């Protein structure tokens, strides 16, 4: 079983809809949680960076972390065709745990249709 599970999709939504993405994980040592957006054949772009449980909002993006359930989510409001990409969740332990190593999910491909 993988440490981080993510539905590969594709997830197809109409323009303007809310995109809902999530990841589950098994390692209780994870403390920092990230979401990256990756366009085809490009490097991942950091969208959200959160610590421990709770919610964080940045523009159209909202990240939620529920450590008790080992479950994280990303919501994209008012989706646009330019949001069509692969979304990767990533996580790591505290500073003393394995340095900077990020453990990624496999990514969810999202398609926003005009």
């Amino acid at each position, binding site marked *: 079983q993988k440490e981080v599970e993510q539905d590969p999709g594709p997830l197809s939504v109409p323009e303007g809809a809310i995109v809902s993405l999530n990841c589950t994980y098994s390692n209780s040592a994870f403390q920092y949680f990230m979401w990256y957006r990756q366009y085809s054949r490009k490097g991942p772009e950091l969208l959200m960076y959160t610590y421990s449980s709770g919610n964080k909002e940045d523009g159209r993006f909202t990240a939620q972390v529920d450590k008790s359930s080992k479950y994280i989510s990303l919501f994209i409001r008012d989706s646009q065709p330019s949001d069509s990409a692969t979304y990767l969740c990533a996580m790591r332990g505290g500073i003393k745990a394995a*340095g*900077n190593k990020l453990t*990624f*999910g496999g990514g969810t491909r999202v398609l926003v249709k005009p």
Partner: protein
Amino acid sequence: DAGVTQSPTHLIKTRGQQVTLRCSPISGHKSVSWYQQVLGQGPQFIFQYYEKEERGRGNFPDRFSARQFPNYSSELNVNALLLGDSALYLCASSNGLAGGGGEQFFGPGTRLTVL
């Protein structure tokens, strides 16, 4: 400010050859990490370097090696290339204290094809 830069953009090699990939971190960042991303999968951690010292190593064979220079740029070397080494190689830089923590920002990657 420039982001993370990587070179070359693309590489085609044959089995058994050796390859060197290069990365320059964001100005002021002292930590560089390398990841391998096979098509259709998430990135897998290979190495982390901070202040020229290896701080972390992923589950990759000894054919993979890296180093960091005084200006914090880094090289990833892969010897005796296998078909399975074909992937996008990503470099990430961060400014976390003592080499840990902090947000990681990725470069555009080097796409390696092994024939």
